[in-house]
């Protein structure tokens, strides 16, 4: 089944490839229809997913025996939400791409290949396979930014590609090192995650390897000070590119930190909690501060991503139940809300061909539905109780308060800063009376646009009101990560950091 999840978008891309280039009106609808298939499958996976710690729905086929590489797929509570998120966002991103009028066929093909690669990253249990997907997705995203982006697209695409490729190059060396070590210790090379997790590493080697992996993922997240590619990529990318970039691709970094750094290098992870925590908090505050002064709406959302992803990194390296669960669910939340915000910015850009905040004003009167969705997503992004952002940020802050109290307190200011830059932006764009002539004639959202936003809004509300629909499935896996760390290091999660400590009534298994 996991194989199909990866292959369906590829097959979709092949189908689109076979349609005539000239029938441009066909490509987008076909792409949307074809990307609904993996969504259906992902929802089925969500339904049959058992809340347990082990990998589920695993598949294993040897790829090339002497190298120990394998087509080794599986899913657990950390990757499942990401797969579902990916499959939700792709049809929406395609639906938002009516602006793409030239070379639509290639656009749809690249988007579907990108989807296959992103799903592949999340479900790979073999590091070689993981790397193949991790690196391969750079190519379609490179084309999406470079061909359909705005003025400085080539520069942005190149910067994006080289930055991320640089990080993953050193990770490749790290992966090779792990496989060679496995060969020395067990007599055969292996890239399987459980095998490599059981290696005996000297602390020096572990720290180096941790650094190699962390660098790759930190560039992807991006963690301050490696974030400079992100605003460029976002501003230049077309709407679909921005949605997938912010919604899913950045999460490859946070997912990687959680999945690989914590599992493979527990000792080094424990040693690194302060470094990573500080970088995360600097990112939170810095991203928010820079967002405040952005004159460009899209750049503002881009910098808000830097800030929000800081929370996820902080939660990950808090090494508590709350932190990890918060990190995983915040991955999803940020994907939904920021995806929606980029979608909204794209919609206004389609109407006005500008993203400058100063160009707008009083849109609330002209486009009430649009303003309503925007405000809703802003509230979700700020973390208003009842909406999804609150759940994630609350869990992260509570979780990190146990282990990194000072950082947790500083991070909390990020929530306030988010309120400042987002609400201020809202005020400037939507409130008052429309002064500019162009703004008076703007049409409100069409049915198509509402139907793109509505599912996202519904999910934001659902996760805000009843997060357990997801948290129940996440918790066993994040607990397993903590168990693994406690078992392989001296680290003990201080009370009340573990799940049992919080839910005294339910979770205790004395």
């Amino acid at each position, binding site marked *: 089944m996991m194989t199909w999840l990866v292959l369906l978008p590829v097959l979709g891309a092949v189908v689109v490839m076979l349609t005539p280039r000239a029938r441009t009106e066909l490509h987008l609808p076909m792409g949307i229809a074809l990307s609904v298939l993996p969504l259906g499958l992902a929802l089925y996976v969500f339904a049959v997913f058992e809340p347990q710690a082990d990998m589920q729905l695993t598949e294993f086929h040897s790829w*090339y025996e002497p*190298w120990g590489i394998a087509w080794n797929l599986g899913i657990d509570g950390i990757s499942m939400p990401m797969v579902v998120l990916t499959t939700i966002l792709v049809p929406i991103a395609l639906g938002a791409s009516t602006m793409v009028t030239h070379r639509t066929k290639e656009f749809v093909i690249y988007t579907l290949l990108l989807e296959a690669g992103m799903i592949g990253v999340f479900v790979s249990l073999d590091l070689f396979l993981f*790397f193949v997907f991790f690196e*391969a997705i*750079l190519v379609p995203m490179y084309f999406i930014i470079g*061909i359909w982006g705005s003025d400085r697209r*080539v520069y942005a695409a*190149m910067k994006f590609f080289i930055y991320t490729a640089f990080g993953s190059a050193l990770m490749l*060396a790290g992966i*090779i090192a792990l496989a060679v070590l496995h060969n020395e210790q067990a007599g055969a090379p292996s890239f399987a995650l459980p095998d490599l997790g059981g290696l005996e590493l000297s602390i020096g080697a572990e720290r180096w390897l941790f650094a190699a992996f962390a660098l790759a993922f930190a560039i992807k997240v991006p963690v301050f000070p490696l974030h400079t590619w992100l605003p460029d990529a976002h501003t230049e990318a077309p709407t679909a590119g921005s949605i997938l970039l912010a919604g899913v691709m950045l999460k490859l970094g946070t997912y990687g930190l959680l999945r690989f750094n914590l599992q493979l290098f527990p000792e080094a992870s424990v040693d690194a909690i302060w470094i990573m925590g500080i970088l995360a908090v600097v990112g939170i505050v810095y991203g928010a501060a820079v967002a405040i002064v952005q004159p460009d709406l899209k750049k503002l959302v881009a910098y808000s991503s830097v800030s929000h992803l800081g929370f996820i990194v902080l939660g990950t390296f808090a090494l508590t139940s709350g932190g990890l669960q918060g990190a995983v669910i915040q991955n999803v939340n940020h994907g939904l809300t920021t995806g929606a915000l980029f979608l909204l910015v794209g919609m206004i850009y389609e109407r006005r061909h500008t993203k400058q905040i100063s160009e707008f004003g009083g849109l609330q009167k002209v486009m009430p539905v649009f303003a309503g969705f925007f405000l809703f997503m802003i509230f979700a992004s700020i973390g208003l109780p009842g909406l999804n952002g609150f759940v994630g940020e609350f869990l992260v802050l509570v979780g990190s308060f146990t282990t990194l109290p000072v950082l947790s307190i500083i991070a909390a200011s990020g929530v306030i800063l988010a309120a400042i830059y987002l609400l201020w932006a809202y005020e400037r764009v939507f409130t008052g009376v429309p002064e500019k002539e162009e703004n008076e004639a703007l049409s409100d959202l069409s049915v198509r646009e509402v139907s793109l936003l509505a599912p996202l809004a519904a999910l934001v509300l659902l996760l805000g009101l009843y997060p357990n629909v997801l948290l129940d499935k996440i918790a066993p896996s994040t607990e397993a990560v903590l168990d693994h760390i406690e078992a392989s290091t001296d680290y003990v999660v201080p009370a009340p950091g573990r799940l049992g400590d919080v839910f005294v009534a339910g979770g205790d298994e004395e």
Partner: protein
Amino acid sequence: MITPEISWLAILPEVMLALGAAGVLLVEVQWKPQSNVLGAIAAGSVVFASAFAVLQWVQAADSVEFGTTDELVAFSGMVLMDGLAIFGRFALLAVTAFGLLAGWKYIVSLGRRSAEAIALILLASAGFSIMVAANNLVMMFLGLEVGSIALYVLAGMSRERARSDEAAIKYFLLGSFASAIFIYGVALIYAGTGELEVLGIREFLAGFVVFSPAVILIGLGLVVVGLGFKVSAAPFHSWAPDVYQGAPAGVVGYMAAVAKIAGFVAITRVLLAGVEALDADWLPIVAAMAALSMLVGSTLALVQGDVRRMLAYSGVAHAGFILTGVVGGTTEGVLFYLAVYSFQLVGAFAVAAAVSGADNSESSLDSYRGLGRRSPFLAGSFTVLLLGMAGLPVTSGFIAKFGVFAQAWTNGFRWLVIVAVLASVIAFAFYLRIIVAMYMDESDAVEIDVPGTSRWVLIVAVATTIVWGILPGSLLSLAADALPL
């Protein structure tokens, strides 16, 4: 060791190629036929040569299985019929067939001189084919010279173009120096060991403790310099950009690929089969050469404004990656890399030839602008090949790079692997520049016509790049079986 009877099978592929070359020339003189007839003769000789190479492979596999590997030493130890030699022949023959197809339009355009071009290609292949099989270093030198001289002439085939003349002269002068250095190295190795045969040198080193191996090492160094020139490894690469740019586009891919295959098989044979006992001495030097090649090749390729020069510098970087495999100490990674890279190289130059057009001169990056519109087929295949050379996953280039990196890491050369991964990132930048020009720049230049034969070359090159990127098992196990004696 010495087998008195002559085992023809060991050299039949070369005999076929040489017969083909002679046949083409004689038929041309006597009947002055259409180019297609000459092409058929050439194709026949390549097919027969390949068939005999397959026979050799079967026999070699049998001999290894039954432990009668002495049978594989032929002509009193002059040539070998081991896996390494036969794998080298497979690669050379495939590239020869590709080279003829990719360059066919150019060859036909030569008119009556087309027979010369075909004969030169077959002769070059015959020479390099004997070089990869040579056990005796003098034999290796003979093969090297037969092949190289044919290539010098081939580089100058377009006499009316000054650039082509310049390329030929430069290639010839520098190449002769390299050959001289090589043979001087052979002499010194002979002085130090009393042996000319690779297997004999190995026995000598295994049987004697050499207290001061200085003479052997200097000789070895000179041999490596000579071969390093042929494969355009830094710092012996300076000829490559001029030759790649000046020589006729139709045959440059072939020229580059065969020289690389033969040179690297020879390097592997000498270093890994011959003087492995001295590896403490040569490994650091070869590693340094690899690192230098990767860095010099990648960075200089960045600043080129000409696609063929860019490919030449990327070839320097690739030489470094392949040397990284040599440092890894096994032949498997080197051979796999050589096979996939030479396919990509011939394919890439088939694109360059098509873009260069009839006058065969234009290869600036500007002439690639908007290629995605002007010829989606050319641009698409070039993109796959460039991504393959860059080593992006899902292409054979990634598997190849991964293989050599893993071997070098296993052998303890971690710094080299780190240099290599960083060099690959630098390399991404210039491969992407070409892709940017093709897809992200607009141009109103005319559409480009792709010759049918080039089309087939490109289809095969792209298909192998992707298929071996996803299912590398078959080629990898073939390369793993292709061991030197």
